[in-house]
């Protein structure tokens, strides 16, 4: 199964910087923003965004991590899923603009679960979504407010995001099942 790189480390970095700018622009500053990274790789991405926003606005942004394992709708397939990671949001989310950050946006079910979790933790004034890669195939009416790159895929392909803090390197790759190179669907 050939693995092709779609985003290099520099591509990723530029995308994150752009998203940071967009967040600040859309929210007219960084006041009341809370960045919540989805476990696992959304967390370091959220931290990087916070650093960028802090350098733009000279304000410290709270960064939290959110594990949605307890909100999944598929408890019986637990053995296929990773174990629960930490949910740790250092501030009350009530009345804040929460920006959820995830690495890959696919069916939308993870984000739905994340919204349920956030609602159990408080009453945010708004929830926005930032993703590094949007690969399409939404099954729920949820959209990303900020996307690093749109990568149309077929269902049997797999997008892999490598993040330096977890995997030792930064890149985004696609895995296609067919032998030989696959034409990227357009």
């Amino acid at each position: 199964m050939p693995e092709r790189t779609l985003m290099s480390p520099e591509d990723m970095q530029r995308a994150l910087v752009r998203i940071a700018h967009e967040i600040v622009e859309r929210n007219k500053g960084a006041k009341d923003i809370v960045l919540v990274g989805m476990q696992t790789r959304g967390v370091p991405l959220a931290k990087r965004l916070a650093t960028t926003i802090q350098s733009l606005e000279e304000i410290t942004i709270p960064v939290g991590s959110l594990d949605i394992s307890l909100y999944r709708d598929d408890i019986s397939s637990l053995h296929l899923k990773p174990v629960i990671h930490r949910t740790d949001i250092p501030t009350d989310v009530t009345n804040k603009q929460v920006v959820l950050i995830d690495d890959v946006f696919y069916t939308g079910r993870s984000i739905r679960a994340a919204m349920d979790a956030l609602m159990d933790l408080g009453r945010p004034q708004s929830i926005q979504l930032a993703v590094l890669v949007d690969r399409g195939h939404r099954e729920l009416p949820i959209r990303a407010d900020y996307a690093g790159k749109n990568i149309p895929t077929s269902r049997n392909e797999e997008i892999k995001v490598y993040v330096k803090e977890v995997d030792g390197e930064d890149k985004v790759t696609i895995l296609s099942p067919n032998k030989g190179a696959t034409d990227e669907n357009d």
Partner: protein
Amino acid sequence: MKTIEPSSSITTPETFPPPSIAVWQHSHVLDLDDFTQEEIELAFEIADAMAEVLTREVKRVPTLRGKTVITLFYEPSTRTRASFELAAKNLSADTVSLDASKSSIVKGESLIDSLRTIQALGADIIVMRHSQSGAPYLAIQYVNCSMINAGDGWHAHPSQALLDLYTIRRHLGKLHDLKVTIIGDITHSRVARSNIWGMTTMGAKVVLCAPPTLLPRGLDSFIANCQLPNVSVETEIEPALENADVVMPLRLQIERQQSGLLPSLREYIQLYQLTMERLSLAKPHVLVMHPGPINEGIEISPEVAHGTQSVIEEQVTNGVAIRMALLYLIAGGKNK
């Protein structure tokens, strides 16, 4: 009362990979004798997450929505039953509690028939406490759903042992090489037995201390045959307590004296009660634990029970978190 705060160094850093869910091998939780160290660590990890849920204002997550947890208690119990029920409810499961003294079980229905009825009612998980050792091993032959043993006779009480281990870990940061002293009626104690398995798996040393009539005659042979070099036996309390990291007095049932196993409660209190003076033989950071309910003034003095070293109330809170973790692991685990 001053409470001891859990040390913050115990939270595992984010980059440390938590044990993979694949280590979980259980369809049922009947005893800790067949739990690996990884499985116990996994239960702790998940209990941590559950403990976080318990700090929220709305202590509820939808994880077990649509699942039915039925508790079947043949022995009276307030705290364990309430603990399991709350754990199930916190995970949004539907719960039904059956009290054997009030239901048709007393009218002569066999255990197997009762279990079949409960299964037909739609139980996904049965939590059972029974007065006969071994009842859960019979039960799992006749039901398809999962079972958690909430205590069977003198034999096992795995969720209690797990919450004991978890409580120690949260305070002392580790279990390996700790000296854990259990004082009391070992013969009749399912808490002691499950703790023996759990503690030794995690590398702790267990000292069992009791008057000779409350130690099983085959205990030394049991320790040898099951290859438990970290378990030792004392009939005197002072050497048992020396340098202990954890002390766990067990509830002494008054019936034991009545059935002739002890000459008098007075003598037991004189020789085995955990007092402040005796506690000073242990390490300064010693944790005082108790599975409850406490007989204040018998196995433990009120000063110790409510003293600075006591984590007895925290055990109860941790019990809910651990039981939530077990329900989570059982409901989604590799089985069937």
